[in-house]
């Protein structure tokens, strides 16, 4: 392999490395408080069967729903029991994360 080809290959690796770190392909991991949601709502909060998707939903919509679940003001099978376990800061972190996922 010529010197020029090797350089091209090495710069290619640098380029791939940059993409791997900064590229859009890698979605941000969910904050730990939101990780609990994924157990039922699935990877990225994308939903599963009768369990609704959280991905890409408006932050205030999700926060309002959580507040209503906590207050037993919204029909629920289990979310009323779950919502009361979170702090306000954890809900803010989780809904912020899901609002940004696809």
């Amino acid at each position: 392999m010529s010197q020029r080809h090797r350089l091209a290959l090495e710069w290619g690796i640098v380029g791939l490395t940059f993409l791997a770190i900064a590229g859009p392909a890698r979605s941000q991991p969910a904050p730990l408080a939101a990780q609990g949601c994924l157990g039922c709502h699935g990877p990225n909060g994308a939903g599963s069967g009768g369990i609704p998707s959280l991905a890409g939903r408006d932050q205030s919509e999700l926060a309002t729903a959580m507040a209503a679940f906590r207050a037993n003001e919204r029909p629920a099978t289990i979310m009323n029991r779950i919502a009361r376990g979170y702090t306000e800061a954890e809900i803010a972190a989780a809904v912020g994360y899901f609002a940004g996922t696809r």
Partner: protein
Amino acid sequence: MTTLRRRSLLTAGAALCAPALPRAQGQARLLVIGGGFGGASAASFACRSYPWLDVTLVEPQPRLITCPYGNLVIAGERRIEEITHGYDGLRARGVRVVQDWAEDVDPVARRVRLRGGDALPYDRLILSPGIAIRFGAIDGYDEAASGTMPHAWIAGDGAQMLLLRRQLEAMPDGGVVGLAIPANPFRCPPGPYERISMIAHYLKRHKPRSKILALDAKDSFSKQALFQDGWTALYPGMIEWVPLAGDGRVVRVDVREGVLETEFGTRHRVDVGNVIPPQSAARIATAAGLTDRTGWVTVDTRTFEARAAPGVHVIGDANIPGPMPKSGFVANSTAKQAVASAAALLRGEAAPEGVYFNTCYSHVGAEFGISVVNIFRPSADGTGIVEVPNSGGVSPRGNLPEQRRLEAGHADDWYRSITADMFR
């Protein structure tokens, strides 16, 4: 660069969670032992969240057969293939998967010895080895006896689960299915009662004159009122549950005679025997000196490091984290906390604040699901775990067919979601 050198570069990179990155000097090695709910969740989460980690997973089975939904396989409601998961998704993400038994941990040299002879070095170890059956704790119940009266409480290669299934299929109508159920703590607290329910579901349709005799070494159990309400509604007269106070503790079995014998000498003749014996942390935890007198591993409730060995994070059913149940959901949740803690400590940072979740569904009937929810946090002094006040709890009681139907569906959805989270 020669072709050979290029290939070796790619091979070296294959163990990285960001496969496009060449291996950096001094990259931190995260070794995960056990590919169940704890270990698979840990490996997947580590690769997705910390691409600078070099993640290796050691698991003796080529595929995971899950204990969750195993009771539906036993009842003929699922095929075993539907609860079997391969590790290719984790490999594709950059996890190096080693199919071998981990035999022992040297927490000083930071090495794990494998049965195949290799010793794997690590910077941080996530140990998620599951449970061991305490053969001999019930007189007459050794490993050979489990070939006649299965425990079906460790999935392994699926043989135990399928043996119990075949025995139920072979049993004549009018037979008695006997279960021996252990005292706390044990893997999956509602599991025996979901199993009773699913066996009843099968018998009701195929062998309706049959009975289930459940001999229990305790006086109360998880989701008890909901299970018993469901049994009365769906399987009237079929299930007899005998608590400890009613001489329910099985102390001896005779697999040749098909007898479960209780503490005060009553010999119950059964046609199919399912003995769920007392348990402990898996053998490697004991061999490594991590278990306490109870047979389980006491851990720091924030980092999940074993009290006996900092740097070894013990998750899943092998640990004994206060009031948290030994469930797949807790294993998944605490796996992420343990990995986040390991990553933080490797970078010289503090472990994150802990918050742990449990959502556990049980099937009582085909359209009858129930659940328990818990949210836990480390106690202020860091030695215990407390449940968040006024949160969680079990499904409401009462005649609520729509709630039960929805929760049965949610259980299926949960299973798809959590296994997707573990193996992506």
